[in-house]
């Protein structure tokens, strides 16, 4: 039996031709995810289905909950049970999850949520692409918190950023959202999974003190408290109420200020470590495109086409969406004449870019309201008009 067991590997090393959804699921498995709690929804369901197949083989558990609310809170429970856990959904499901994503933020519970975006609002376009949930990942829940949100643009990156999402979740102790979109989730291309030894895994920091001395919400200098989980004898105390370092509810402005400031600042102050962007042909650029997700692929196409025509355009691809790379963008604003922001929504990242540039350059959103990604030509046309 144990010999048979060895046949099932967390890391499916090798070359594959597969979808973004499957790649993300494999990434999660590769980094050690052992619990998936979810509820089906197009276009994310293949992630759940893949986990249902693979997790039991690896000694993990797949639970299909009764809804998305149960799913998100279930993975928080599993995380406190000591395992890496995740869920996957799309807009309507994410909307139902926001309350308990907030609980995850307040209780500093590592876990990963994959949102495969479709066209909204409401039921909208269930089988077609959208990028309309960008702002929701930051502002969906009530109260102040700083989320980490990552946004791949290839099947390979779905795999890699799934790993990164878990690593950030564990390192910074919070629910991390991996933001795919229908195009990426459903398209197949080459995925190269490296050797298990090449997978960089981050594990949550454990307390070094004894259960008697331990204060579960006392942070280290990096503002992150080590995390004891259930069953380790630390008698952890976890609440979504404003709490002190012991984890006890303490309902006053002082404790609130200390706690909420810290859970925000632990991300704000570590922006450098968290923010990833890809820069393409920006060195001499007179125009820039800022893009993310599957649209960033066609944005790159537009850059290449423009360059062929002699127009100096570059691309800043946002891999980390939140925290938002506003400093990099402000610097870019000083360099270029105009920034284009193609996105499949009615102006979400565009707003953030506008905020970041402080009036230093012109910002133009190129919006599609859902259902299809931009054609490189559509983006090119806009730039050509200005160049």
């Amino acid at each position, binding site marked *: 039996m144990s010999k048979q067991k060895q046949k099932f590997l967390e890391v499916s090393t090798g070359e594959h031709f597969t979808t973004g959804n499957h790649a993300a699921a494999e990434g999660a498995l590769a980094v050690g995810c052992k619990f998936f709690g979810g509820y089906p929804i197009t276009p994310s369901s293949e992630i759940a289905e893949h986990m249902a197949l693979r997790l039991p083989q690896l000694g993990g558990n797949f639970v299909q909950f009764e809804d998305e609310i149960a799913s998100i809170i279930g993975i928080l429970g599993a995380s406190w049970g000591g395992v890496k856990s995740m869920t996957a959904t799309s807009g309507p499901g994410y909307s139902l999850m926001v309350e308990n994503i907030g609980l995850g933020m307040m209780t500093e519970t590592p876990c990963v949520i994959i949102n495969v975006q479709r066209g909204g609002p409401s039921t909208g376009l269930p089988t077609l692409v959208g990028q309309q949930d960008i702002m929701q990942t930051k502002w969906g829940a009530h109260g102040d918190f700083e989320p980490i949100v990552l946004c791949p643009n290839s099947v390979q990156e779905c795999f890699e950023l799934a790993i990164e999402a878990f690593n950030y979740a564990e390192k910074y102790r919070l629910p991390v959202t991996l933001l795919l979109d229908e*195009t990426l989730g459903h398209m197949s291309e080459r995925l190269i999974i490296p050797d298990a030894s090449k997978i960089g895994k981050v594990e949550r920091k454990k307390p070094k003190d004894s259960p008697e001395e331990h204060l579960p919400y006392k942070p280290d200098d990096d503002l992150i408290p080590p995390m004891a989980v259930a069953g380790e004898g630390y008698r952890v105390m976890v609440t979504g109420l404003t709490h002190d370092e012991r984890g006890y509810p303490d309902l006053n402005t002082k404790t609130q200020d200390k706690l909420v400031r810290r859970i925000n600042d632990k991300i704000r102050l570590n922006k450098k470590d968290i923010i990833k962007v890809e820069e393409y042909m920006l060195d001499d650029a007179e125009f820039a495109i800022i893009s993310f997700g599957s649209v960033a692929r066609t944005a790159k196409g537009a850059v290449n086409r423009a360059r062929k025509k002699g127009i100096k355009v570059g691309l800043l691809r946002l891999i980390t969406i939140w925290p938002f790379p506003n400093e990099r963008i402000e610097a870019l604003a000083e360099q270029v004449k105009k920034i284009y922001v193609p996105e499949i929504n009615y102006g979400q990242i565009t707003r953030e870019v506008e905020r970041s540039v402080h009036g230093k350059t012109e910002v133009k959103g190129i919006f599609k309201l859902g259902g299809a990604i931009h054609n490189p030509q559509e983006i090119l046309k806009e730039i050509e008009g200005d160049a």
Partner: protein
Amino acid sequence: MSRVEIRFAGFGGQGIGLMGRLVGEAVSLLEEGKNSVMTQSYGPESRGGASSTDVVIDEGEIDYPKATELDYFVVLSEEAYQKYIPKLKEGGILFVEEDLVTLDENAKKAKKIFKIPATKIAETLGSRLYANIAMLGYVCANTTDIFSEEAMLTIMKEKIKARFVEKNLIAFQKGMEYKSDS
């Protein structure tokens, strides 16, 4: 070689998705220096209705994963033909399941039209379900810039369930060997 766009289309149950997946996979994993992206159209209907799969092949990065101007259109149903023929580019190449598709003047823009009674061929093997693979064999034999026979055979052996492999290999072979009258 630059970007090549292929669309496979038919009705639900013809195994259109599998055609795309096999081609995409053969190219991506076995054709040196080539990338491929496969996408499928999803409708609100779970099943039934038109089904289509696109494969885009390129030596460089594939920036735009959707097919818009088809270099090849491989079609196995009338409905799909009607729906997608406008996307075939001037001078593109058309493969049709001749018993299920009635060509109209839209087909004229094709540089070349290959017809095959793929379903009938499949039926000689005991099931219509092999029509898609027969068609793939036919495509393989009549194109040079999509995938090689060798790559496809390797992938089929790997991806198709063991008990169906043999029949599918035969179907592929029959498709390879088929010569259209036209």
